[in-house]
């Protein structure tokens, strides 16, 4: 059996999405900037996609800017807010300890340029506390950027509360919603979101395309110099097939959001229940406030990469936050932010599901994973100590 349990990394493109994209390669191949008919057909597709995505988020089409993905949208949103802030002498930025590197590395860069970066705690549950944000806000705060849902452990942040606090303070609120869009109901107006990043490949759209939502009234600086595309903010001929595919994917998944969510939650619950029975295991992140699809466990005494290799040999694709898989010296910053010791963070396993997964697949994981854990533990000197109670 082949089980793809890594949907938080990326998803399969759906058949309907491919069907929507194909004509954009061979029939509607024009450049939307061209005056002629073929170009204008492409322009119509482009704007239709923008309005479809707008509807799914309750945003105006003109508030959406297409990008090359989530990373670019994060870079753009944060650097933009920094430029606006610096003009008013505001150089304080608030974020959280477990953001995606697209956010954290951009913030590191700004720190070197003289910005003061304050990362809020996420505690053992993996949740930002609104009162912490309230206490952190200052006169010179230029931006608050907090992810909608975490990509490693799946915890959902209290976005409407955080957004309201920022709105009341007149501070720009950005959220990296890459893991949330298409999986959770998002209404940028009701949830007080000023800026939002999304990426198509997390909801069965193509890779390399995403969007930045920027609320009317928030000045947006040019991110890529060039032509007049994206209202002059991001030059370069638009990636029409991918943008059309992204809109089709979001429309499709939004229509079935509740149904998908019920199905995927059921898979998650089955898996969490079964794996909780493994001794010295722990579910990472709050049990309730989580995305339907992401399950992240730590198994003490073993290392994640070894687990991944054994799972892969049995056809199960998953991921881990162990240092050994990252090529870096430390295990995942997300798991460390939860307060997990390095040794335990090494034994993490993330399995992430979509509506394409089945109960049979989860049962297969439940059958195959515990013996792998047992086998690795049987050869682990760390497990030996744990068993002896040291």
């Amino acid at each position, binding site marked *: 059996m082949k089980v793809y349990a890594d949907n938080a990394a990326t998803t399969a493109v759906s058949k309907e999405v491919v069907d929507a994209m194909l004509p954009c390669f061979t029939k509607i191949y024009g450049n939307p900037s061209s005056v002629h008919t073929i170009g204008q057909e492409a322009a119509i597709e482009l704007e239709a996609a923008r309005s479809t995505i707008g509807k799914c988020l309750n945003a105006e089409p003109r508030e959406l800017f297409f990008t090359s993905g989530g990373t670019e949208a994060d870079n753009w949103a944060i650097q933009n807010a920094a430029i606006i802030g610096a003009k008013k002498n505001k150089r304080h930025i608030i974020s959280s300890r477990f953001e995606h590197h697209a956010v954290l590395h951009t913030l590191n860069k700004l720190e070197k340029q003289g910005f003061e970066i304050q990362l809020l705690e996420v505690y053992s549950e993996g949740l930002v506390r609104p009162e912490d944000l309230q206490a952190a806000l200052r006169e010179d705060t230029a931006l608050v950027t907090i992810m909608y849902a975490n990509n490693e452990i799946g915890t959902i942040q209290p976005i409407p509360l955080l957004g309201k606090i920022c709105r009341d303070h007149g501070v720009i609120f950005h959220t990296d919603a890459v893991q949330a869009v298409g999986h959770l109901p998002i209404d940028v107006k009701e949830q007080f979101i000023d800026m939002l990043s999304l990426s198509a490949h997390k909801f069965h759209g193509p890779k390399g395309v995403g969007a930045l939502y920027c609320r009317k009234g928030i000045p947006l600086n040019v991110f890529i110099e060039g032509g007049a595309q994206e209202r002059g903010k991001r030059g370069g001929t638009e990636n029409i097939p991918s943008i059309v595919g992204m809109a089709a994917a979001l429309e499709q998944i939004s229509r079935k959001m509740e149904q998908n969510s019920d199905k995927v939650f059921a898979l998650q619950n089955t898996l969490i229940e079964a794996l909780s029975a493994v001794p010295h295991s722990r579910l990472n992140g709050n049990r309730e406030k989580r995305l339907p699809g992401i399950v992240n466990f730590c198994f003490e005494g073993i290392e994640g*990469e070894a687990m991944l290799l054994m799972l892969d040999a049995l056809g199960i694709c998953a991921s881990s936050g162990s240092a*050994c898989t990252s090529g870096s010296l430390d295990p995942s910053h997300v798991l460390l932010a939860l307060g997990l010791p390095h040794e335990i963070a090494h034994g993490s396993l993330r399995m992430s599901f979509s509506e394409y997964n089945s109960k049979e697949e989860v049962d297969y994981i439940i059958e195959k994973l515990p013996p792998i854990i047992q086998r690795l533990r*049987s050869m*682990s*000197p760390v497990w030996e100590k744990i068993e002896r109670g040291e």
Partner: protein
Amino acid sequence: MAYSKIVMDHFENPRNVGKIMDADGIGEVGNAVCGDIMKIYLKIDNDTISDVKFNTFGCGAAIAASSMTTELIKGKTVDQALQLTNKAVMEALDGLPPVKHHCSVLAEEAVKAAIDDYYKKHDNKEVCGASTGCTCK
């Protein structure tokens, strides 16, 4: 990350996993770099390694390197085993990705630590440059 066929074979079918209850030398080394731990047990008769077992907490490369190391030193004299380098372990494994080189260093250190422990227990001799950090040579 692509591992060689030999690495995957030693990872999937590790040789000499386990413990030796009446070991003559035990070496446990940890690599602070990524928090992995390797433990090697030696049985030594007439200066020859007659049996060797390992326990490892670590990635696929660390497990494969431990397994290969036990094969490389089994039946060898203590002096021969002391000559084992991480490079030899890597070569025997048909290479390791650059980020995994330290896993083979760990294997070399584990052998030295185990022999060091054997010397300490038996004739109080210390191994030069072993995990004790001795720099007498």
